[in-house]
C-alpha cells in the first residue's frame, strides 16, 4: 500500500474539519478548546508530511513551534475557563454573553 502526500493531506483535512465542527457546534468551553487542539494537530500532520516529501527539516522545526503555541493556548484557555466558571458557575459558551456578542 503506497501512501503519498495526498493521503496525508486528506487525513489532515478531515482532522481539521472535525475540529472546526467541534468549535462551531459544541456548547462546552472545554470541548471547544479540545477541538482547537485537534485543528492544531492536523496542521502539524501537514507540516511533518511536507517536511518528508520535500526532504527539508524546516517543517519539523515549525511543528515543534506549533506544539509550543498549543501549550500556551491551552494554559491561557483553561485559566479563562476557570475564571468564567468562578464568575458565572457555567461552562456554556452561550451564557458568557455579558458583552451581547
Amino acid at each position, binding site marked *: 500500500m503506497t501512501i503519498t502526500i495526498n493521503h496525508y493531506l486528506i487525513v489532515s483535512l*478531515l482532522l481539521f474539519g472535525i475540529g472546526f465542527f467541534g468549535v462551531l457546534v459544541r456548547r462546552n468551553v472545554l470541548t471547544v478548546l479540545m477541538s482547537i487542539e485537534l485543528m492544531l494537530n492536523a496542521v502539524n500532520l501537514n507540516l511533518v508530511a511536507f517536511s518528508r516529501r520535500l526532504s527539508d527539516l524546516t517543517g519539523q522545526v515549525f511543528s515543534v513551534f506549533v506544539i509550543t503555541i498549543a501549550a500556551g493556548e491551552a494554559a*491561557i484557555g*483553561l485559566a479563562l475557563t476557570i475564571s468564567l466558571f468562578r464568575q458565572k458557575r457555567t461552562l456554556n459558551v452561550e451564557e458568557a454573553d455579558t458583552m451581547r456578542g
Partner: protein
Amino acid sequence: MAEGALLTGTSGVLFTIFAVLALAMAVAVVVAKNPVHSALYLLVSFLLVACIFILQQAEFVGAVQILVYAGGIMVLFLFVVMLVNPRTAATKTFQHQWDVALLLFPVFLIPFAYILWTEKLPDVPVNAAALVTVRGKLAGNTEAVSWVLFRDYLVPFEVASIFLLVAMIGAVVLGKRSLEKMD
C-alpha cells in the same frame, strides 16, 4: 520506492490504520457528552498521530507530541475538568449552529479539493536520508532537527520562550484574580 511515495508496504497499511483510528477518536471527542470522555478520546487521538509521526521517521516531533500533548496539555485539561463541577455542564450537547457549520464546511472544502486536484508539487524525489544527516554525517533525527532549530531558527526559538513566559504569567494572573473574587 516509487517517486513521491512517502510510505510503502507495511508502513502504508499501518498509516491507514492509525489515520482511520485517529479520525474516529477525533469524531468521538466532538460528539462525547462528558468532557472527561472527550479528554480521554483526545489523548488516544494524539497518541495515534504521534505514531504516524514516528512512522515517517519524525521521531523527535513524535516524542515531543507525546510529552507535551499527552503528558502536559491533557493533564491540564483533566485538572480543569476536575476543578469545575461536571454536573453544571450544559444539558444540551450542541448549540444551534449546525446551519453555519454545514454552510462553512463546503466553503472550506471546495478550495482545498481544487488545490489538491490541480496543484502539482515540485517533482523532487523523497530523500529520507536528508532528515537524519548533519553536515554529511549520519546522525539521529533529533540531532538534525536541533541543528536546523538552533542554526536557522534561533530567534523564533527565543521568541517562543518569551511567549511561554507570557502565557505562564497570564495563566497565573487569571487564576489568582478569580480566586480573590471568591472570597
